[in-house]
């Protein structure tokens, strides 16, 4: 028998395989999947990646390597789900984090469930991630439509804003936000007078809807949209002499910055993190700010940091072999361990995967009140963790025993 060069090479490759596989198991890989070029680039984007890397850097004690990769899902569910499949199947990704845009967030959730891989969603608003479309390997960090609606919607009605008109982005996120907000408005005795849902993405002129809102005489304009759409809606409402209250149901500090205080002042909004909340949040902000010169962290960025940190703690506690085997095992361990980080303080993850932290109702400062760069919020109301979120029994998550 003659031994060809090809056979020798093939044999060498087969012999090398177990070695390579062994080398791979010692590495935990985290994938940050979000919008890196579109309307949600600043609310998540590169700053989310930097915050996840910050957590990896700070997580010192281990016995395994960690690397962070990132991709742009372009706010398209098919692209997002495709990348998630590739990451979990072929690139050895153990956990996907961030994934804003509810439609994409849910699509990636289905992939994580099918493959039993860990998935920490931070950027998507839909409360279905821990409700009807929950999975044992999913954690939802920072915020959801229920928590936003309860904090912003409920408190606005209590303050006298009892008639509403909604301008809603025509996709799953906008409609869920409107549905949840309507629930709390009616619970407090308010009424919704009408709503316009507009095509998303691709709308930049909201004047037609503002005019319809004005004609109903509603006391509050509720904005069920996000990012540049929210900024445009508020800017144009200001232009059209909208004197009544505006409740931006989902708004980040990055959006306030884009609007500028002269237009944004007086708005109320809800976040679960603000850089100037306490000594620990300020310390975190001081650490990441040099890496993100044009963008200060919001609750999504903070969630990417805190979620990554807690995930790594759970992996270490669980042992790397078991962590590699099952996403549910990691997430169960994440739920079993209390969370503790500079952004959200001490908290815990509930059975259905929701992080239990307080929500803060902020009012945007006037230009005179603002003392420095990004000094934008004053705290109006704090909803404690056990009241801020949807009760466990109402979510409809299939594996929660009630």
């Amino acid at each position, binding site marked *: 028998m003659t031994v060809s060069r090809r056979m020798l090479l093939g044999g060498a490759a087969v012999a090398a395989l177990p070695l390579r596989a062994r080398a791979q198991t010692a590495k935990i890989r985290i994938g940050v999947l979000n919008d890196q070029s579109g309307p949600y680039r*600043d609310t998540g984007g590169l700053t989310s990646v930097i915050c996840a890397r910050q957590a990896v850097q700070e997580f010192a004690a281990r016995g395994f390597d960690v690397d962070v990769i990132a991709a742009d899902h372009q706010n398209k569910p098919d692209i997002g789900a495709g990348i998630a499949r590739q990451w979990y199947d072929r690139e050895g990704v153990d956990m996907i984090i961030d994934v804003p845009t509810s439609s994409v967030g849910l699509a990636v959730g289905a992939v994580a469930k099918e493959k039993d891989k860990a998935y920490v969603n931070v950027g998507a608003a839909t409360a279905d991630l821990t409700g009807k479309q929950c999975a044992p390997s999913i954690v939802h960090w920072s915020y959801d439509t229920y928590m936003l609606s309860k904090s912003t919607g409920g408190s606005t009605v209590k303050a006298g804003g009892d008639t509403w008109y909604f301008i809603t982005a025509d996709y799953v996120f906008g409609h869920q936000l409107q549905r949840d907000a309507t629930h709390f408005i009616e619970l407090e005795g308010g009424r919704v007078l009408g709503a316009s849902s*507009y095509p998303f993405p691709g*709308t*930049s002129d909201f004047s037609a809807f503002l*005019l319809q809102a004005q*004609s109903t005489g509603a006391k509050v304009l509720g904005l069920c949209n996000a990012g540049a759409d929210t*900024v445009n809606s508020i800017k144009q409402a200001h232009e059209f002499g909208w004197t009544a209250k505006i409740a931006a149901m989902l708004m980040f500090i990055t959006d306030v910055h884009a609007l500028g205080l002269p237009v944004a002042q007086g708005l109320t909004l809800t976040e679960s993190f603000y850089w100037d909340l306490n000594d620990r949040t300020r310390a975190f902000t001081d650490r990441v700010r040099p890496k993100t010169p044009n*963008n200060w962290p919001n609750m999504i960025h903070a969630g990417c940091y805190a979620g990554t940190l807690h995930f790594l703690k759970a992996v270490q506690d669980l042992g790397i072999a078991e962590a590699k085997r099952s996403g549910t095992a990691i997430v169960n361990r994440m739920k079993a361990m209390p969370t503790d980080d500079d952004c959200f303080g001490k908290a815990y993850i509930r059975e259905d995967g929701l992080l239990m932290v307080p929500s803060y109702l902020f009012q945007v400062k006037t230009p005179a009140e603002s003392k420095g760069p990004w000094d934008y919020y004053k705290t109006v109301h704090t909803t404690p963790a056990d009241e801020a979120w949807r009760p466990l029994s109402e979510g409809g998550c299939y594996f929660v025993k009630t």
Partner: protein
Amino acid sequence: MVMIFGKPLILLYGQLTLGLINGAFYALLSLGLAVIFGLLNVVNFAHGALFMLGAFVTWGLLTYLGIGYWPSLVLAPLVIGVLGAVMQRTLIRRLAGLDPLYGLLLTFGCALVIEGLMRNQFGSSGVPYAIPEALSGAVNLGFMVLPRYRAWVVIAAAVMCLAVWLVIERTRLGALLRAATENAPLVQAFGVNVPRMVTLTYAAGAALAAFGGVLAAPMNSVNPNMGTNLIIVVFAVVVIGGMGSILGSIITGFGLGIIEGLTKVYYPEGSATVIFVVMVIVLLLRPAGLFGKAA
């Protein structure tokens, strides 16, 4: 209260006015495209990016140099016009005589590069730009509250459209332009510097886009994606009006603005689609567009 199809008439008046304002924008932008296509035979996909740059230059003039809105109306188009001339001389000129598809790909690539660079520098959520003092506030017209600034926009855009139309149809320069569109070698034989005229035409088209950008800066969020949303609609306007037809662009721009405005009252979810429905119908019935000449 008078009702039309279940909506109060008074609301419709308001929406018609808004449609007219948006139509003014469409007309202004599609006009630049039509001029460029007419003479250069280039489908200028960079138009949205130039529009966005116009808005950013306006913002930059105020932020870095303290130059306000009114001088920007002239300065920003000038700056972008020069940029357009450079683009035409260094890039677009090399494709002269080739299939228009190459020009389309080149300008599309330019748009992606420009938008990407701007996003890298300024992020995606944009920068604030306030309405000039003299035009802030709103007038109550009885049927709607009309911001003074929007009234100014519709007037400025209409005057600009009229001026461009007059230059092209009623002046010697315009006559040369139209002649060069028909037969460039012949015009050159008469001693006209056609390459220079082509460069200046592209620069003028770019300046028109930038003028639109200045007008948009106080109304919309000034962000790197602001041109992308608009450009697709504007292309539909050009196609419906007839490629290269100046008058067609203007009339179609205003007309589609109004149709879109009415859709926002009756079926807002369809307001992004209605323009393309119109486009399909027009192309089926008149493949060269409403005002285009059949090839």
